[in-house]
């Protein structure tokens, strides 16, 4: 099984990286870009047939920091 977990900053939490990238894009002339926020994505290869529970668990307990981050996951195939 292949799955994907995205971890991203909660709304309202400052994202210095995204902010700096947005400015850089703006300076490069991409002026239609209004906002950039950066997150992490984990591609996971695992043996389970029904990985939903395990994905939810590792996202919550290991990959995301619940104080500032949220996550979502999906099974790819």
């Amino acid at each position, binding site marked *: 099984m292949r799955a994907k977990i995205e971890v991203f900053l909660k709304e309202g939490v400052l994202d*210095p*990286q995204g902010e*700096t*990238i947005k400015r*850089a894009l703006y*300076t*490069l002339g991409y002026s239609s870009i209004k906002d950039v926020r950066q997150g992490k994505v984990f591609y996971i290869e695992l043996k389970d047939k029904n990985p939903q529970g395990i994905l939810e668990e590792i996202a919550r307990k290991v990959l995301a920091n619940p104080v500032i981050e949220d996550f979502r996951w999906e099974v790819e195939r």
Partner: protein
Amino acid sequence: MGSRKVKFGIVVYPGTNCDMDTHYVIKEVAGEEAQYLWHEDLDLKGSQVVVLPGGFSYGDYLRSGAIARFSPIMKKIKKFAEKGGLIIGICNGFQILLESGLLPGAMLRNRGLRFICSFEELLVENDETPFTLLYTKGERLRMPIAHIDGNYFAEIDVLSELERERRIVFRYINNPNGSAHDLAGIISKKGNVFGLMPHPERASEALLGSADGLRVFLSAAKYVRES
């Protein structure tokens, strides 16, 4: 003309933090001329050697050196490189040279994933570059490293080309970060662009624990004076 001072230009990007250290060593210790170049400058102001110092340009956001490569001054630096001008990229400066394609390869996160600041032992592999004239092949040096993205990566054919063309200038004795072929510093095909992760400017005074790095600047100055 033999004793005229060589003019080093030190590029300052937002977030650069070894600019003053490098300036100090070039001017006060090596006794050459040093000037700052602002990242928005469109002119190298007569610099004979350009130094991209260490630090965290643009916070190292996105990837180390990734945003700095778009600075206005980079166009001038590329032209300067094409014409054979001497360029030294130290730490973040090395990362910028990689990101902008002036040197091959890329930096990954250190093997241990952590920032490492420590003195490392280096082996001089090539003493015929403009930056290592004053060293001897096989010599061991002590210089500090201070980085989190110093794990050099390149495709196998690039690595073998670097080996074949003797473009690996310094190698780590105890590879601290996972770099391919233990490499700590490389030069460009033409030999005029030098990138290294260790900080020669932090190893230029015995008071600070080593003066092994000073000859990088002295070599470049000598090369310029004699050519």
